[in-house]
């Protein structure tokens, strides 16, 4: 009897070990299935992950805020050392900007008059939401920030996000209070751009390295170091002419672009809705009419 019990116990232990091994394999299968579902952009997965993002972003915001305050305090104390030099620089910049502003106003009036004469279709006005960066992620696997949008309804997936100097990314996920933004150097980021001077078109693509690359440039195109890059407006989400960055290296594979904004120092960003019609929607509508 005891021998039989021992045998049963041994069998049970063996079975438990097999199940244990199987559980690890099953866990791996789940991980791969999750990845595949993420790639398929399934609506259910999108909504579930959006809701999860909302919860974890709120938790991050709450947990990180004391540490954030400490970091800000330290930054403030450090900035006090340079405050005099900073003040002088800002006064000079302010003087320069006042003059530039006057010049720009004159150009704006002239531009509007010329547009009227040419009957130019003016782009609709933009609305924007200013959002605080609450979390950031930067590694070989992703470059993104999470921002607090305070329940704004004007935020939706795909909208352009600009920093203080130029475009920094696009909204990837948004919930009622938080949004995740893929920065321009993230591997998922693709923004249609062109060179400001020569109007050479390409796509600004991230590859998870610190700096994004302008790719799909025509072979004969003359893109060189120092060229300024702006959005081309193709795709219909981002209007043309938004500043992006400057070319720091160009070769036959593309051009490395340094964004105007320092992507690792974003504190506040603007999520901008240009109310541009989605060109694909119009194409579909035309197809349906036919």
């Amino acid at each position, binding site marked *: 009897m005891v021998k039989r019990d021992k045998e049963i116990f041994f069998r049970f232990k063996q079975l438990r070990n097999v199940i*244990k091994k199987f*559980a*690890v394999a099953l*866990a*791996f299968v*789940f*991980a*791969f*299935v*999750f*990845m595949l*579902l*993420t*790639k398929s952009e399934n609506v259910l*997965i999108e909504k579930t*992950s959006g809701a*999860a*993002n909302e*919860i*974890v972003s709120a*938790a*991050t915001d709450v*947990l*990180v805020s004391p*540490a*954030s305050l400490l*970091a800000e305090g330290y*930054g403030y104390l450090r900035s006090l050392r340079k405050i005099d030099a900073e003040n002088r620089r800002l006064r000079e910049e302010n003087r320069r900007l006042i003059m530039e502003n006057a010049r720009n106003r004159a150009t704006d009036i002239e531009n509007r008059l010329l547009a009227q004469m040419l009957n130019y279709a003016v782009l609709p006005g933009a609305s924007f939401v200013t959002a605080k*960066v*609450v*979390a*950031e*992620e*930067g*590694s*070989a*696997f*992703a*470059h*993104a*920030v*999470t921002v607090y949008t305070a329940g704004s309804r004007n935020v939706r997936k795909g909208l352009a996000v600009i920093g203080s100097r130029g475009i920094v990314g696009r909204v*990837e996920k948004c919930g009622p209070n938080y949004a*995740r933004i*893929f920065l321009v150097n*993230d*591997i998922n980021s693709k923004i249609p751009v062109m060179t400001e001077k020569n109007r050479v078109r390409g796509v600004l693509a991230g*590859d*998870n*390295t*610190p700096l994004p690359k302008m790719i799909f440039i025509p072979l004969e195109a003359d893109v060189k170091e120092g060229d300024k890059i702006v959005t081309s407006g193709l795709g219909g989400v981002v209007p043309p002419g938004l500043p992006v960055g400057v070319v720091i290296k160009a070769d036959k594979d593309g051009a490395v672009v340094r964004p105007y904004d320092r*992507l*690792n*120092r*974003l*504190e506040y960003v603007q999520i901008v809705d240009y109310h541009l019609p989605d060109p694909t929607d119009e194409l579909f509508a035309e197809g349906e009419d036919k």
Partner: protein
Amino acid sequence: MTESWSETAKDKLYRLLPLLCSLLLVFFSYLPLSSPMADNARPAMALMCAYFWLVYRPDLFNLGVVFVFGMIADGLSAAPFGSGLAALLVMYLLTTNLIRYLNGRVFVVLWAGAALLLPVCLLAQWLLLSFYYGQPLPLLQLFFSYLTSLACYPLIGGLNALILNHFLQEDI
């Protein structure tokens, strides 16, 4: 009756401490630090915490806990959902198979263990995501991330050890 209920609740909370402590540290790893280093080579916090608890308390940081931890950590990350979980599972497999060489050893041995196991997990995730995106991800940043992880391990291990020594020394 009340005492036994509170004892049970306390026991359950203590059992959850490794997961909660690891999650807290993962949350902190998303702190905006305004530094190029932090933006490109953040330490692999989830892997380090999992390694620590898998060595010291594998009974409390079992496969189920690793799975839940991986899911929450992936929910936080902008990387494709499931990739971090796969890396954690690799860490689980490696650590549970090598535990006899790691358990009860001095800190330097554990640090060396982390130095050996972390790159395997990071490379597994790198490989998986390179297939996912159809192009190789930058290896240099992965290497820097590994280096910062190694440099941060004494601190992360120390913080986790505080929890271990204060709350989990008794046999729960």
